[in-house]
């Protein structure tokens, strides 16, 4: 039998009409530019978090008490704060804990929530019923209340903040994961694998999970930003962590009182948060587009 077809029949199939082809060339370039910019920003911030010393001109703790509240320019690109610390260096060093709060709480929340959701969706039955009621209950309790309670219970330490934020994110992840698993569970290829005789557990690892987690990742990109924001909210309410090197949320909430006299103190950390969240979300959107099964299908 001869198959004289070009194998790359990527364009084949009618599903194509919906896919990426509807993008115009020029417009695509603009949004791609945004994505590249976003990737660069995230990269830069990650570098800041890993090796802040390479980028920051001063130690973040160094207080030039004779140069407090200097506006941006001169020796201090982004000015100095009320201690006379270099705002740029603070922002650079602050990235570490901010990223830590974001990443760790998203990881923890995502893992716990994802696991609960996956269990619930995959096993089903009474386990699903019980877990989902629990998730419902968790959802009715405002996240900030949980966060406050945990921070109040365990004290305002970085890990506790992470824990608090993670716990309040659990229901969201659990729900999304459950929905995903339930829909993947009924996809024909899972049935196909079952007809082969694959065991339930294997099927889960081989087929269900790998196809289920990408929306979770997109959610996590949003979560990354919101957990930094919740962290700063806690700091606003006086439950933040006091560290030698404050994270962005803390910088922002502590500097807010100076907004009218020294706008740069909290504006730059605020911009750092915004830029980071913005970039990560852009990348998340991009990722979703890239892994959209409809597009793969095209």
């Amino acid at each position: 039998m001869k198959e004289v077809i070009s194998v790359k029949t990527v364009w084949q199939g009618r599903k194509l009409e919906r896919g990426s082809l509807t993008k115009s060339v020029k417009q695509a370039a603009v949004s791609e530019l945004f994505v590249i910019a976003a990737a660069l920003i995230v990269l830069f911030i990650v570098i800041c978090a890993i090796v802040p010393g390479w980028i920051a001109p001063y130690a973040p703790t160094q207080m030039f008490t004779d140069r407090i509240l200097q506006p941006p320019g001169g020796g201090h690109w982004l000015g100095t704060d009320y201690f006379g610390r270099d705002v740029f260096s603070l922002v650079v060093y602050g990235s570490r804990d901010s990223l830590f709060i974001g990443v760790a709480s998203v990881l923890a929340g995502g893992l716990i929530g994802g696991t609960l959701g996956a269990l619930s969706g995959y096993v089903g039955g009474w386990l699903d019923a019980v877990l989902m009621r629990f998730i419902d209950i968790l959802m009715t309790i405002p996240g900030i209340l949980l966060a406050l309670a945990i921070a109040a219970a365990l004290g305002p330490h970085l890990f506790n903040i992470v824990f608090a934020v993670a716990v309040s994110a659990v229901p969201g992840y659990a729900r999304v994961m459950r929905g995903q698993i339930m829909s993947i569970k009924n996809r024909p290829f899972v049935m196909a694998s079952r007809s082969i005789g694959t065991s339930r557990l294997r099927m889960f690892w081989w087929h269900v999970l790998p196809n289920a987690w990408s929306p979770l990742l997109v959610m996590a990109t949003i979560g990354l930003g919101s957990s930094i924001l919740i962290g700063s909210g806690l700091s606003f309410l006086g439950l933040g962590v006091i560290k030698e090197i404050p994270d962005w949320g803390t910088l922002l909430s502590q500097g807010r009182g100076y907004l009218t006299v020294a706008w740069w103190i909290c504006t730059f950390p605020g911009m750092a948060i915004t830029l980071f969240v913005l970039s990560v979300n852009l990348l998340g959107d991009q990722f979703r587009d890239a892994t959209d099964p409809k597009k793969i299908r095209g």
Partner: protein
Amino acid sequence: MTQLLEIQHLSVDFKTKNGLLRAITDVSLHIQPGETVCLVGESGSGKTITSKSVMRLIDDENGKIAEGSIVLGGTDVTVLPSKELRALRGKKMAMVFQEPMAAFDPVFTIGSQITESILEHKLGNKEQAWTRAVQLLRRVGIPEPELRMKQYPNELSGGMLQRAMIAMALSCGPELLIADEPTTALDVTIQAQILQLLQELKAEFNMSILLITHDMGIAAEMADRIVVMYAGQVVEQATAHQLFEQPHHPYTRGLLQSITTLDSDRSRKLFSIDGSIPNLSELPSGCRFHPRCPYAADRCSKDSPPLFDVNGRQSACWYAADLVQRSDWKQPEADSKAETILIQEEDKEESFSLKERMFEVEGVSKYYPVKKGLLHRSASFIRAVDDVSFSIVKGETFGLVGESGSGKSTLGRVLLQLEKATAGKVLFQGQDLAKLETAGIQEARKHMQMIFQDPYGSVNPRWSVGDIIGEPLRVHEPLSSGERRRRVEELLGAVGLNPSWIDRYPHEFSGGQRQRIGIARAIALNPQFILADEAVSALDVSVQAQIVNLMQDLQERLGLTYLFIAHGLNIVRHISDRIGVMYLGKLVEIAPSEELFRHPAHHYTKGLLASVPIADPSRKRELISIQGEIPSPSNPPAGCRFHTRCPAATARCKEIQPELSEISDGHWVACHYPA
């Protein structure tokens, strides 16, 4: 005669990420008032694009008419400003789509969607629009139109919706009706009803119809003229009679030969055009068909042939005039394997008589609870399969046919223990599967495999072909990865795929190739039994033929037993040794293949057979044979379930359920009055 629609040298481009993509090139066709023109061709040949271009609907999909003109009743729609264009849409030309369920806005009532279009074109006030819509619904054969007006699309059956769609298209009295595969998603019985309706309406409303289909049978039934498209070009244009009598283009010839008809020779291999339709971005030079053309000459790969006038028709083949003179043109292609198959047939007869049972199904039922409320109490059941008994003999192909929702797939799944039967027994080689432990079932699964309808959906899109085909091996056989890889390569070869493609991903394959992957996976463990649920329904005819040939081939080589579920009766007839007919969860007739088609005993079977369009315009006939639609399986009619639609039903049929009884050797039927 003035043309209603005149498309000239139409080319359409799409803006894509990788630049402009020309989807159709230099398409010309015309339709006269009152004429039915059929557009046929394989999937992806540009039929839909052509029809959408007429309505300028491609504008919204980043498409652009690059060249050519489309003149409708004297106005060139290609240059019309959008406001005037909208005035034409729906009013002068209307469209009916393939998937009626998807073509209605799910959140508006049927009524509001029909009146909306009347109101938009200012053909009356609300009340008048309403009255007109009700009239139209009644006209297209929808019972209780007033009630239906207030219903939502999800509350109507597919056939009903397609009627409503047609009513909507007719609402402003269009001169041109474009129907893009209007019956592909429907059952044959419903398809016949709809086609019949279209023919009636055409005369009544004095419309022209541009009918798009890939079913040559439909084209033969409906068309005055047929336009054949291939890879974005028109390759042939002729009247229906001319075309079926003597195709002038090798592609058309191939298409016609790929068709399995109710009376084609079962012992022969199906004809198929090699290869598949090329990718639009990598079109071959010269004649686009030349890589697949058995008659291709040097010139074909260099110069692209225009649409010539030949013998009072048009063909885009350099050699059309010469080819039709050749003696082998009319004959089906010689098949080297034909003889061996015949020998095999005899073998089969022998083993058949041994009557070694592969599957024995005894009184199997499968009920699905209808869930209600939060606490999910089941108020009623869908009787998807209801007390079915039959057996499948080793080495045979058992075909299962029936309208959508009759329970074919459910029965198949119960057989493979993918779902537990509500009642009854399934014996696999004498072993009661229901009694097996999980491990036992896993073991039994080695011997029974499945090929799925959707070749793409049934493979994990993130896995490479090697992983997909190797999965059963990984589960059941302790092979090293190297050994496994070698096995997979063998399997790829066995299903006619290049073993070097082992690391590619499903999306890099065509539909036919994907189905081969599915088959390779199914045979990986050397099973004894394969369930093929609509395994070829989603494929183009020529590809369908390729796959059916492959399946038969494998059956010979590996001694497989098949349960072949399909709604394409022709294909089932071709591949099956015996056929079971299902209706509303019941098996109503079982007979050897030829016997069933020659002497259908159940009135349902008869109706089913009569609904199949015949690819021969000279044999046009009244299509309609079964009226109405299949009733709901959650509340099936008492007595014989078919009595509501049966022309021969009597009072007895309404009360007493007929049992399956043997009327001749191996021919069983469940009817009080078998024909």
